């Protein structure tokens, strides 16, 4: 090919020069345009980076996503609350006091007088009745909170009487959960809301509630841009202590490394999605402190008890063998760098009645013995299913490989079968997998939701492994009836013992949570449900 002659030397320099003269100054100038806001405005603004793409709605009666728990918790006060560090101590909020009848059926709440919604309407017993009934009749994700309720009566403006259909010792703790927040009934009705029995079709208030708050809490939602940002502003008329920050901006940043850079640069005050790996990479000497706390999330292995799914696993001795074969400490220390703990059964450490010393330890000899007793001295074949996206921050592949090796050491030959998450969830809910890695996050801070989900026959998790033990069902019911915390704790310990004997689920990791916080921020305590109580933060 012919070589072309021209005068490129000058041209090439020109081009290189133009690249330099255009790109670099533009970038530098953009840095200047973006001089950070200083002074009081910056000081009274709290900037939180977080992955907010889970958001669906801000309507307390319909939301059941992580981000909405935090937003709603600060806009809609609940009757009672549970705060760090003691998540077993129920504290007053909109209800300044309450009485529970001896039979555990009637709850009488006395509201804090003087609380007003942002509209100016006073908070009355009628609003409580409306909010609870609406939640019940919307028949949406969080409606189960009102399942125990038989009747609600507003005795006068500040007294509300709730009757349950059966005693439920966990119900008061449920009233700390954000979906049970109190809405301004007049405002919601004016925008199409209803608490009638046909609310699931008739209620039209959700789109209005997505754009603003109809609550009386310390912060009100003033703007929400999905996958971009959410803005909360201080409620000037709040009846409780005035919160420090005038404005809280949530920026949607999905990538953990970017979150870390923003926190280290001081552009974000709080980075909520740290994990052990990100924490390990924090620059030495950076102005950032790591707040650590225990989540009440669980990463576990489901063990199917249905003989049609696996005749081997249907034998209790085989399930016990599986549980004795696992190197639990190796998982916590090696796989998650000690960023987790392990309770004995499917009750997380932090709720009533959990004794970590009951946790099962690895005992390979016992595992082999149990297998031999069950008639499988040479082990058997089994499939382990999991999905490939993280299980509440824990990477499933290395965990599955570790379990494969551990079970392999006692002769159980595990085939790994990863599948796409949506497919796997469907199969798990249909009860198809033999062994399955899965995760669970808390509904509210009482043992009941876990007992009901995992150990009652037909419970949302129990039915996936066909777990059916009348003794467990009886203990779950006994725990619901018993109002005395000491006696309740004993019941859940006994249930834990039954669970360790039956092994329908094997608890693997209760992960710790890590948050990167600017050292100027005070009062950050990790909450297992709504991550942090925003109104308690200051600078």
């Amino acid at each position, binding site marked *: *090919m*012919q*070589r*072309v*002659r*021209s*005068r*490129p030397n000058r*041209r*090439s320099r020109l*081009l290189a020069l133009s690249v330099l003269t255009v790109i670099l100054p*533009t*970038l530098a100038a*953009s*840095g200047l*345009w*973006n001089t950070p*806001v200083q002074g009081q*405005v*910056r000081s009274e*603004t709290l*900037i939180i980076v977080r992955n907010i*793409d889970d958001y*669906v*709605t801000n309507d307390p009666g319909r939301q*059941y996503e992580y981000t909405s728990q935090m937003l709603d918790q600060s806009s809609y006060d609940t009757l009672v609350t549970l705060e760090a560090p003691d998540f077993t101590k129920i504290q007053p909020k909109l209800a300044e006091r309450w009485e529970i009848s001896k039979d555990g059926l009637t709850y009488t709440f006395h509201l804090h007088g003087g609380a007003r919604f942002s509209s100016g309407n006073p908070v009355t017993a009628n609003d409580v009745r409306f909010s609870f009934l609406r939640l019940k009749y919307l*028949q*949406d*994700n*969080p*409606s*189960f909170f009102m399942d125990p309720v038989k009747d609600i009566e507003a005795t006068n403006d500040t007294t509300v009487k709730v009757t349950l259909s059966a005693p439920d010792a966990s119900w008061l703790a449920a009233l700390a959960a954000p979906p049970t927040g109190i809405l301004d009934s007049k405002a919601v009705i004016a925008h199409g809301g209803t608490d009638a029995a046909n609310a*699931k079709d008739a209620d039209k208030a*959700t789109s209005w509630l997505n754009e603003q708050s109809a609550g009386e809490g310390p912060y009100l939602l003033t703007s929400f*841009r999905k*996958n*971009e*940002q959410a803005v909360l502003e201080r409620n000037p008329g709040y009846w409780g202590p005035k919160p420090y920050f005038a404005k809280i901006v949530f*920026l949607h*940043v999905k*990538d953990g*490394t*970017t979150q870390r*850079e*923003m926190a*280290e*640069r001081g552009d974000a005050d709080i980075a909520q999605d740290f994990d052990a790996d990100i924490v390990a990479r924090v620059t030495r000497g950076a102005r950032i402190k790591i707040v650590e706390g225990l989540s009440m999330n669980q990463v576990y292995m489901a063990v199917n008890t249905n003989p049609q799914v696996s005749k081997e696993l249907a034998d209790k001795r085989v399930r016990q063998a599986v549980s004795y074969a696992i190197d639990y400490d190796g998982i916590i220390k090696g796989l998650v760098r000690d960023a987790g703990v392990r309770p004995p059964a499917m009750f997380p450490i932090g709720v009533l009645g959990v004794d970590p010393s009951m946790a099962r330890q690895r005992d390979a000899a016992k595992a082999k013995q149990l297998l031999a007793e069950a008639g499988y001295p040479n082990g058997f074949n089994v499939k382990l299913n999991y999905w490939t996206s993280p299980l509440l921050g824990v990477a499933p592949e290395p965990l599955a490989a570790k379990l494969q090796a551990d079970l392999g050491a006692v002769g159980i030959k595990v085939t790994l079968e990863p599948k*796409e*998450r*949506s*497919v796997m*969830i*469907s*199969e798990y*809910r249909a009860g198809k997998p033999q062994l399955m890695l899965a995760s669970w996050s808390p*509904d509210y801070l009482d043992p009941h*939701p876990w007992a009901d989900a995992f150990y009652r026959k*037909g419970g*949302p998790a129990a*039915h996936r492994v066909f777990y059916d033990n009348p003794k467990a069902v009886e203990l779950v019911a006994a725990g619901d009836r018993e109002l005395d915390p000491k006696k309740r704790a004993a019941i859940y310990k006994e249930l834990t013992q039954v669970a360790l004997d039956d092994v329908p689920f094997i608890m693997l990791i209760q992960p710790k949570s890590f948050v990167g916080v600017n050292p100027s921020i005070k009062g950050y305590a990790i909450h297992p449900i709504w991550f942090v109580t925003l109104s308690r933060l200051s600078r």
Partner: protein
Amino acid sequence: MLVRYLGQRLAFAGVALLGVVVVAFLVAHLVPADPLAVVLSDTATKDPRIRAQYMKRWGLDRPLPEQFLYYLKNVAHGDLGESFTTRRPVLRDLAQYLPATIELSVTAFAVSVVFGVPLGVWAALRHNRSADHAARLISLVGAASPIFWTGLIALYIFYYLLRWAPGPGRLDPHQAFPPAVTGFLLVDSLIAGRAGAFLSALSHIILPALVLGWFIMGLTARTTRSALLEVLSADYLRTARAKGLGERRVVGLHALRNALIPVLTVTGLAFASLLSGAVLTETVFAWPGIGRYAVTAATRLDYPAILGVTLLTGVIYISVNFIVDLLYGVLDPRIRV
């Protein structure tokens, strides 16, 4: 003639879109998973009433062919249905995310053309010399580097270390968003007369646009170079040179114009791919565009959103192709209809 041509094109576009929707619909429904299992919480799925209500709400209780015909009928009326996950009309979701994507794509595309075409010309003229190798290196690194990696490195250098660029996102957190008129922040901030918001938006778009633009620039430069090399040895250029024309005019007027046709094809397709969303760039730069929405829709089996995005992508590709065809005619009169 032109009317007939346009009519043909439109008819073809309609058939193509229908095909795209049929395939997307079938593929989405072939996935052996229950969309409600993804949408509803563990506790809510146990309640058959809640399940039934959601099945009815999204028409999932009807046979598949009926669902499809129902969908087509709604699309014909401009209704793309309601997303399972966002619980908003898909059209509203698309209208929210598309402008952010267009804004970024157009800027990135401008970067790629402004830098890529001259770089390609330069490389062709200095064929096989050190400058050509340098240009090749720049292009190849741009086109071959995984874009999320380039993005992370760029953020690390220009945001974290040097502080030249602002952090991720479209706007400084202290700037309120201007009222949405067009959805394009650069335009809306000007309409609202807010210089601060405009500058903030501009400074936020530069880094992601450079990263994305560099990726496409590699492609543009390589295509320009090879196309130009091909025409540079053509007879008509020898004639032009023989007439005594200066090299600059030979290249600029005669060669480049003919060489641009393949460049147009390649960059046109690249632009369409930009418009259908760049998921990884969006993740790294926290850019609320269509790519992220598409991925979420796919992983959560959100049928209406999957079909909506597919339809939109189809429309984008067909329109870009059409515009490229028209531009061929501008560059080369022989192609004109």
